[in-house]
């Protein structure tokens, strides 16, 4: 498999004029396209535009829909991956779905990202949705193409279709020994009707899905050849950096540009804008011939900020407001059962616990960046590492008030993202600067920009209460969540007086199905000017912390082992039971641990997948040591099982980093953690042994990129309680005793 990188795109982009393109298509001849719902003639046309990857969307927008497979006459098999890759492996997992039914090996294909065109459907790689929402569709697209190729061969050879087989990019007729490459058949195949309802393979017949082939993007990632967004170069481009207000929302009052303009290679110094969904922020940009030159000039700007209004923005004030709101029930979610107030009043044993999770940053290793080129004809081309090509097209078009057809988005590999690169402020900043400078501009955020400017995962408060009857049975449970709403601030859907469903992700009745007769979740909105956004596993990363620690508190109060307690209250949930049982076995949960050691567990469902951890901790001198994490994850059928394991290992480490290391704190309007000395995720010397088990399953695939995160922090804190009786209710916390 060739991963189509933009190094290719750029040079071809530059070199390949329209005339070159015509030559190219002439050489390759007719092309096969698979489109589920279009007449044949338009499909072939559509593909000709797509293969060169260089046509404005306007020319292909009329030839729509589900176009994932292109086979050239010279046997080049191109698969379009509609979900960008930030490391989670969609560049292999989604092509695997196509290739399985198409009957090609991954080594035979070239994979390209889609360009945001609506014919590819929703392209945002988010919500751990890439496989689970495309599982049927992409296999169907692969199957339809295979049937067309086989039919073309049968017709050519005058033999029954049923006597032909497709195998490794060829159609064979075993009786006569005839064989044809897909490329030799593609022209004829393109003329055929698209078959509907082709029967898909049974799981037992899978050759690729579930088989753990090595990731084919990895060789380029160990040789330095992989091209990320930050590596893109376009001729005559200028490098840009932006001085931003250290204080949230500061406005530019004045700045010096004389010194900056004297630095070699500096071409422009100008006020810049950063459009957030709810406000446009200001900065001062330097555009120069080298990024280093731009950074040097940035230091001389002496920007004076007008920021008096935001001195009082602090994370401390934010949490004070959240804690205050969480003292009483907020807006009650619809999935409430029984009567919590009444049951509470008549209960024997009452428990309460208030939990807090911090603001935190994504801090992907590749800082935000984009190359943008607003051209004289008003069209724009961007090269950007983004999670959603389609949203990039839409945002840029809206921002410049141009048509989507005038926007060409070249999606790049992301050097990590975790949600950040689905928030496209940096793309629009680059577009703005290119428009002003009338030149291609490559904007790169510094790490300081990344950590201090947000958006951040919102800090959240969980206030929980539970009651037991005199037999020690759990009768009543309430989880009040208070904090900022992404739906409200980012998506601009007013959540005032509403129970924001997103916030209860991971803890609602469906995701956390503990059978409790009286139970409810509530939400109280905290309005804040602090920019917030989704972060790996979103609210499940915050809400599940309080939920699963408090379940442990209840287990202890009812004098039950925390695992037994969960088995009892989840007994009608076979999938949860299965995960807990496997965890019990793999973690050797029932063994008697030596003195000074303890084990803790937690379980959560998010993005339709269930994950549970058992964390073993011990005391060493004045420290708690995390010895081992054993995890079990059920993602349904795992398309790439080892990759699911890798994602889960990563979630353990990211979740532990957030539990143990600094979050983001704001004092007097300014973020205090400005680089990796202060915001310092776990390093290799700080991680425990991690052992992940992927549950064998034939159920439809569910999420894999995020569900491993929510239960790790509560499992750790539950282990710490079992070790020393100290109930951790606020993250981050220190392992020093």
């Amino acid at each position, binding site marked *: 498999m060739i991963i189509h990188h933009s190094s290719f795109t750029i040079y071809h982009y530059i070199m390949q004029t329209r005339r070159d393109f015509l030559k190219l298509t002439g050489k390759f001849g007719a092309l096969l396209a698979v489109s589920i719902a279009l007449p044949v003639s338009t499909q072939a046309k559509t593909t000709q535009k797509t293969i060169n990857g260089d046509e404005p969307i306007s020319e292909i927008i009329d030839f729509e829909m589900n176009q994932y497979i292109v086979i050239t006459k010279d046997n080049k098999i191109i698969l379009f991956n509609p979900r960008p890759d*930030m*490391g*989670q*492996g969609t560049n292999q997992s989604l092509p695997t779905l196509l290739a399985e039914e198409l009957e090609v090996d991954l080594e035979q294909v070239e994979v390209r990202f889609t360009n945001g065109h609506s014919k590819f459907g929703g392209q945002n790689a988010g919500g751990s949705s890439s496989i689970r929402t495309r599982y049927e569709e992409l296999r169907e697209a692969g199957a339809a193409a295979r049937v067309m190729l086989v039919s073309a061969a049968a017709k050519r050879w005058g033999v029954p279709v049923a006597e032909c087989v497709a195998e490794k990019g060829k159609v064979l007729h075993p009786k006569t020994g005839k064989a044809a490459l897909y490329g030799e058949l593609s022209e004829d195949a393109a003329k055929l009707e698209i078959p509907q309802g082709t029967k898909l393979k049974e799981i037992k017949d899978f050759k690729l899905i579930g088989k753990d082939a*090595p*990731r084919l*993007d*990895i*060789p*380029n*990632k*160990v*040789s*330095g*050849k*992989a*091209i*990320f967004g*930050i*590596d893109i*170069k376009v001729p005559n481009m200028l*490098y840009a950096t932006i001085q931003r207000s250290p204080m949230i929302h500061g406005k530019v009052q004045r700045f010096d540009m004389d010194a900056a303009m004297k630095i*070699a290679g500096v071409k422009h110094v100008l006020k810049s804008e950063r459009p957030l969904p709810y406000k446009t922020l200001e900065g001062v940009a330097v555009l120069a011939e*080298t*990024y*280093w*030159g731009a950074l*040097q000039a940035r230091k001389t700007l002496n920007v004076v900020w007008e920021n008096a209004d935001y001195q009082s923005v602090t994370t401390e004030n934010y949490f004070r407001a959240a804690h205050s709101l969480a003292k009483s029930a907020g807006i009650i979610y619809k999935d409430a059962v029984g009567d919590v107030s009444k049951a509470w009043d008549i209960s024997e044993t009452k428990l309460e616990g208030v939990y807090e999770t911090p603001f935190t940053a994504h*801090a*992907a*290793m*590749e*800082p935000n960046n984009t190359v943008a080129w607003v051209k004289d004809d008003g069209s724009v081309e961007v090269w950007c590492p983004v999670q959603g090509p389609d949203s990039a097209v839409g945002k840029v078009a809206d921002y410049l008030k141009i048509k989507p057809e005038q926007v060409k988005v070249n999606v790049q*590999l*992301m*050097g*990590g*993202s*975790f949600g950040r690169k689905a928030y496209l402020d940096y793309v629009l900043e680059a577009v703005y600067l290119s428009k002003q400078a009338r030149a291609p501009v490559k904007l*790169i955020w*510094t*790490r300081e920009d990344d950590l201090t400017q947000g958006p951040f995962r919102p800090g959240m408060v969980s206030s929980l209460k539970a009651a037991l009857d005199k037999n020690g049975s759990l009768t009543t449970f309430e989880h009040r969540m208070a904090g900022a709403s992404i739906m409200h601030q980012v998506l601009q859907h007013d959540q005032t007086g509403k129970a924001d469903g997103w916030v209860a992700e991971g803890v609602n009745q469906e995701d956390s199905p503990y059978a409790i007769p009286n139970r409810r979740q509530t939400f109280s909105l905290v309005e804040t000017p602090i920019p917030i956004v989704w972060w790996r596993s979103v609210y499940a990363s915050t809400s599940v912390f309080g939920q699963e620690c408090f379940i442990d508190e209840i287990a202890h109060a009812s004098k039950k082992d925390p695992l037994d307690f969960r088995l009892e209250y989840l007994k009608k949930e076979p999938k949860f039971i299965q995960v807990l049982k496997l965890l019990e076995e793999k973690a050797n949960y029932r063994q008697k641990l030596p003195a000074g050691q303890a084990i803790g567990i937690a379980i959560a469902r998010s993005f339709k997948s269930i994950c549970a951890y058992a964390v073993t901790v011990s005391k060493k001198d004045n420290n708690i040591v995390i010895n081992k994490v054993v995890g079990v994850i059920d993602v349904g059928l795992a398309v790439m099982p*080892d990759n699911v394991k*890798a*994602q889960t*290992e*990563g*979630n353990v*480490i*990211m979740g532990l980093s957030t539990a143990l290391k600094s979050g983001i704190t704001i004092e007097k309007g300014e973020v205090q953690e400005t*680089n*990796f*000395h202060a915001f310092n*995720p*776990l*390093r*290799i*010397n700080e*991680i425990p*042994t991690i052992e992940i088990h992927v549950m064998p399953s034939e159920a439809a695939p569910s999420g894999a990129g995020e569900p491993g995160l929510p239960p790790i922090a509560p499992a750790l804190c539950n282990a710490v309680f079992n070790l020393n009786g100290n109930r951790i209710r606020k993250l981050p916390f220190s392992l020093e005793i």
Partner: protein
Amino acid sequence: MTKIQIQVNGTKHTVEADPEMPLLWALRDLIGLTGTKFGCGMTLCGACTVHLDGAPVRSCALPIGQIKKSHITTIEGISSDNSHPVQKAWIEMQTPQCGYCQSGQIMSAVALLKNNAHPTDADIDAALAGNLCRCGTYPRIRAAVKRAATLMKDKNNMPTKSDTGSR
């Protein structure tokens, strides 16, 4: 602006730049070797790790004016075909996820193994603690370093192409 000559992966390059420009930006923007990555600009994350006469250094804080006659090796210089045992081990262990930090991780590992054929966990920790990975590939990095040590015992596994002077 000054004309500065530096030797990278066995090739002499002349760049016209401010002598204060960190090697990182000279490699990426002037010489066109983009395998070395920008992560923090303050030597905190290790994404920019290269070798200076065989020793790992953070190129984000090394002014090109100071390099003089020293030999620089980047990720592109350890082999031309992923034949270095560290690269082989990285592939075998399926280590990278996003891959962005891996050039730096690999350069730190190559330097470690050059001086220490049998690194313990503590040795690996000491040599690689300066390299952040946000995807959380550390368990596989650890496994890959050990695997590379094993591969390196067999001389046949050493990369055939030697163009750096730093191995």
